[in-house]
């Protein structure tokens, strides 16, 4: 079912596919770490504007995208999140000067680590969404949900849940 290498494949090989997880019923689960000042506010604006998007995301508010410890992302993935979104202010707009740049460096590093561990790093997204971009937030969740649907359920979930 998953085409991922390394960890995912070995788990698949051992446990096989979960028959209940067909593509039609599979709803990706996304954990989003959003910065308080831009993306979380943008997510609020999506609500104020009554924009509709998939209910796949669970938002955890952080003060800054620069405070998102890579361990949080790994923890989310091992707990069974199909995808993790980190949302921050646009470059130059950080409330704390440069936290978003830190997030960018950390995410780049993290994705390499994940990839080298055989994990599909496309499950981790970093996006700049400002407080006035409610539509961009809604679109991002929709896009990410679609993308994760194509990727299929996270191998981690199958591994631990069976």
């Amino acid at each position, binding site marked *: 079912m998953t085409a991922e290498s390394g960890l995912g494949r070995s788990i698949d090989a051992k446990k096989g596919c979960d028959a209940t997880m067909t593509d039609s019923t599979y709803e990706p689960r996304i954990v989003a770490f959003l910065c308080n000042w831009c993306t979380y506010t943008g997510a609020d604006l999506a609500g104020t504007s009554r924009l509709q998007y998939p209910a796949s995301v669970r938002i955890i508010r952080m003060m800054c995208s620069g405070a998102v410890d890579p361990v949080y992302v790994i923890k989310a993935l091992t707990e069974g999140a199909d995808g993790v979104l980190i949302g921050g202010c646009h470059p130059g707009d950080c409330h704390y000067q440069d936290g978003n740049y830190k997030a960018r460096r950390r995410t780049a590093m993290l994705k390499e680590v994940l990839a080298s561990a055989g994990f599909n790093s496309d499950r981790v997204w970093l996006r700049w969404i400002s407080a006035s971009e409610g*539509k961009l937030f809604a679109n991002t969740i929709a896009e990410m949900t679609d993308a994760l649907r194509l990727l299929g359920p996270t191998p981690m979930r199958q591994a631990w849940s069976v």
Partner: protein
Amino acid sequence: MSAEDPVRGMQPMHAPRALAPEAVPGAGRVNPTLGSVLVVGGGIGGMQASIDLAEAGFAVHLVERLPAIGGTMAQLDKTFPTNDCAMCIMSPKLVEVGRHLNIHILTNAELEGIEGEAGDFRVTLRQHPRYVKLDACTGCGDCAAACPVHRPDAFNQNLSERRAIFKLYPQAIPNAFAIHKQGTAPCRDACPIHQRAQGYVALIRESRFADAYRTILEDNPFPSVCGRVCNHRCEDACSRGQADAPVNIMALKRFVSDWVWDQQVAGAWDAAAFDSRNPSPAASGHRVAIVGAGPAGLTCALDLVRLGHAVAVFEALPVAGGMMRVGVPEYRMPYERLEQEVEQILREGVELHLNHRVDDAPGLLRQGYDAVFVAVGAHQGVKLPIPGADLPGVTMATEFLRRVSLRNLASDDGPGAAAGEPDPSLHVREKRVLVLGGGNVAIDAAMSARRLGAAWVGMACLESREQMPAHDWEVRDAEEEGIEVFASRTFSAITQANGHVSGVDCAQVNFRGFVEGRPDFDILPHTEEHIATDVVIFAIGQRPDLECLKGRAETVRGRFPVVDGDTLATTLPGVFAGGDAVTGTTFVVDAIAAGHKAAGSIDCFLRGEPAKRTNGRLPIAEQDPVEVARMLADGTRSSAPRAEPTRRLASERRSDFGEVYAALSEAQAMAEAARCLECGVCSECLQCVYACRAGAIDHLQTEQELHLEVGSVLLAPGVEPVSGTIRPEYGFGRYANVITSLQFERMLSASGPFAGVVQRPSDGAHPRKVAWIQCVGSRDTSCGQGYCSSVCCMYATKEAVIAREHDPNIEPTIFYIDLRAFGKGFDEYIERAEQEQGVRYVRSMVSSVREIPGTGNLRLSYAGFRADGKPLPQEEEFDLVVLSTGLKPTEAACSLARRLGVRLNEFGFAESPAFEPGETSRPGVYVAGAFSEPKDIPETVIEASCAAARVSALLAEARGTLTQERTYPAEREVAEEAPRVGVFVCHCGINIGGVVDVPAVVEYATGLAGVAYAERNIYTCSQDTQQKITATILEHRLNRVVVASCTPRTHEPLFQDTLRQAGLNPHLFEMANIREQDAWVHRGSPDVATRKAKELVAMAVSKARTLRPIQCGSVAVVPRALVIGGGVAGMTAALAIAAQGFPVDLVEREAELGGNLRHIHVGVAGSDPQHLLRQTIARVRGEPRIGVMTGAEVLEVAGYVGNYRTTVRRSDGERVELSHGATVVATGGRERRPEAYGYGELPSVVTQREFEGLLQTPIDGAAGASPRSVVMIQCVGSRDESQPYCSRVCCSEALKNALALKQREPQAQVTLLYRDLRSYGFRERLYRQARLAGVRFLQFEPGEPPVVTRREIEPGRSAEQLRVRVLAQPGKEPVEILADLVVLSAGIEAEPGNASLSRLLKVPLTKDGFFLEAHVKLRPVDFAAEGIYLCGLAHSPRSIDETLAQAHAASIKVVALLAKKELAATPIIASVNPRLCSACGLCVEVCPFGARRLEPGDAYAQVVEVLCQGCGACVAACPNKASQQKGFEFGQVREMLEAALWEPA
């Protein structure tokens, strides 16, 4: 001042603090200084000033005309030169202002006037009604969704629509809606019952017919009657009538009543649900008897029942409805409709007794009724006292019509059979019938007779055809039906044959009207005639039958009872009378009005309250005919003709009682409704009231006058863009695709009308070629705008850049005169725009814009040049044209300034004296922002702080006397307790509850680990719920609280405050955002939303279980400041701090004070810089609070905000350590030494500064003779590769010096060679003066600089001469000038010493070596490091006035800090676990605020709590988890993650 929660907005009224002499310092003086300030204008300037003042210890009243603060900045998309999102950077400020305990926001308010003097003003404010209670509104928006009135959205520059009830913008503070009322619509005003016609018309247009019905019923229980037989004074008053024909309001009302009827007939109407909208009131215990079940009686009965009184209605006839039933023929009004409406009234609890004649109305008072309303109508006909009037065959219209209407009810025993009278049809069938009278009743009688089979029907009346009281269309209908009309007749006798009527003798008259109730006419001679008839029906008047009053109430000549006009009380206490019984025959609507009035006064009577007299209403909303014509022409309103209902053919209708007029169809009705002009804006349809579950709407609010006592007034009313129509040749308003820059700004905004998509208004197409035209309403004396608006060049560039970011296909072109990119980082921005972002700049003024028919494209004409430099007119086609409109003061601001006695300059801006930025001509009144001169956001913020500093100095002695602090009970220790979480789930009216199954969420929450209590509330944020939560926390000993409602960004502080009220640490709180991030975004899937809500609650509870109390650390503040730099910036800052009451050390490296100001001699407009210098130095030397050290240098800086220790080496070499809480960096800058044009080699080449010095001496030129020719060269060492920025002041300096020379040596030839003449703001005046004085201006391109060479000395001249060659633009014309003197405008460069100081202070520099502020837009005098501020040339090149403003601005930042005895740290700061820390120092590296410290030898890294801003960067960087962020601890995030991803097995 108010205990109201600031997040939800303040109460509009605050009890102004009474002047208690013993409470304020200076008690006993005549004019004590008050510690409060009125700030006018809630834009970014007013907000900044308010924050500064409140932080500095003053109570602030912030007055804003609009319903929300935010000003122009809230409308902007991005800001230059950083492209920051305006709303992103502003909204924290909005929230701060909204929440600040000592800032009281007064929206919808205007300052009327002030009395008193500086320090002690009494101000009068006018508070316009908002019609929404600020303390109740939750900002949910249900009201706007229900509102049927659409208006152009001014916030979106009319590119979209909003409703009459609206929130200014999504992030608005206060977060509350407001209603826009223009006044009472004329239709409503003209109606006796003030029927909300505009309201139901608007609802019909929206096809909301049931809602329209409900709105009608608010005022009128008989819509089907009034939809048919009203004389619709509404239509007579309708503004649309001025344009073509009034809206057919009556037909629309009938349409709605018919629609409801059809629903009922079809069984689609849920009467019970509709009725239940009127909740049963509490019973009052009073009983009221009403005599007569006509419109007055039944209306009164219904009103009284709704007020809780028991009502019995007694009716003599066998049917209810009075004249509506027995006076109006069925062909006009089907009785079943009336019966249905009566039924509706009875369902609400009115008791009706038919066939019950009351003989003694006052006697009812003795039978247990507490009041009686006599509404018996006027059912007695009147006959003329002429011979034959009593013959058989003579009857009266009232009797006749009653018998006709009751004919189908006639039975033997009912009195309805009219006591054995014959069937009226027998009476007239096959007979000749003549009706005497010309009114509506006469017509009704005539037409009824016609339908009953009369052989011939005639009408005769005194009035002429034109004078007849019946409507013209009624007479016309009658004639169509073959009824013969004999107008202008008087009757002398009814003739008889065989004891029966045979005819009427009459004669023609010239009737002139009634005089004292008697007809006035002459009989025309020889016009006698005889009209043969079998039946005569008198229809000449009706009277009430007042038998039931038993003669005990006073009457008018025995005909009508005497009543009080306001209360309808008769002379008998407890007995009221109204309707036709009092007024004689009138219209149904008048009787309904009487019923309402009687009910109101009877209710007052029963409650023992004085009767309510007429309440104040809004003025009538007038429509400007020109505006109406425009709306009809441009399609804003439907231009369709009035819809008329169809009539049955006369031949068809005259033989039966079927209804004559048909109803409008649905489509017709909606089209007709669309003709309404919506005069009142708000139609008062009350749909918002029905929709609002919080009960926040109050349509009865009225304007209030408020009085406050304040020490000072600060004006920051802002400016507005000039209209795009100021240059008609550009076609704004005529061509759809010519828009203003602010419209384009809204277009770019992601939350704007097009969600950030750049599109053409004409067709929505994506434009490719977009042109900006600069200086529209700027630098243009022809339209009175003789100044530069300062911001347009930059905003146009920004808009062009951002537009291309949105759509890379856009090709922007900016047409300009001079590119004025004079601010910090501006020139680079322009450079990037041109080089990298494809923005094309054309230096040319556009002469005209024409639309190309068919395409909507625009052809621009402008002057261009051929390759050889010859002029060539150009034309170019664009898809979209943006006018860069300039800025001007609002009329409101100007008139306010005039009222206050604040002097305005020739352009209408508030004038500050030279070198006194922020001051006005009136002491104690200060000005900030663009109202003193057009300026950008940072300069506005600087000036706001500057004005605040001046206020703070004025009121220094009253600092802290009127501010408030909240007090809370002691915090309960909960650390040792097991978690007891309370969960409060909010319905938010239907916002959450309409989607999420809230009870299910509560039930789910109850089962979560650690949850001790869970409940739900309609509005968790309401005041009463807060009290309930406090009680619940105490009762259930809760030690953690979760609220599942909206976003924590706006509401967390409110709930945290509630926790504190209950004795809990505010950080034992967590929110689950189930509105913005759940219910609102999953509206279509309630199940999914409910599941998500449960999970969000589970996440919040999981985190809450692990929450720990957070104690905010604090540190004592050393109340002393250090200013580094003794130039005019540093001296002014030091003086300002001292004036505000704090001691200062002023350290200057050089031996004397004064800095650059020592070299500036020439002032503008009579100002004297040297006087300023002398005065400032003298004041510094004379100020005991200032310690001056000259020749001193800063060596070391230690400590942190509030507690700095700075080591200074004095001139004598001794080291001293200064303790201070705050630091101001004012180290200045310097004139750059030119390296070109022969400077240093040729003695006649000097800098501007040197030239200024020369101007002070008797001029001999550099070498003895007075210069005859002077050439000034601009941008020497500015805007080049080595120094890429603009030095901002050189153009104005050159103009100033050129003018000074011209004044002294009028014959001297002055030539100014420039690239862009940057005389921004009012400096444009200098430019104009220089041109008028004959200064020559030649523009050159950067790649072709002038060349200066030495010229051989002329015979007879001792001085050397210089030859200047330049390729002058436009056209690259080679020009050669001989000059005695060449003056170089050398730029300003940063002090080289900045580098070392920046290292000492740990604050950053720009790449140009100036200090870098914390935020370019909103924190222009702050460093990111707390406690260090900057001003003057250390920040960037700037003028003296700008430097002074910045120095004052820095001073209030210092004072706000020093005024606090201790500084509290942010709660959510980092902490360190020493056991885990390996002292690697990564945290120190990543901290942008210097809050992490690791000194050599430390075992673990520290957190300097006051410096930590709580970003969490160090936490994420810490490899050992030794660093944690309070409130965002590792374990807490883990708990949330596990809850988010937990799956039930």
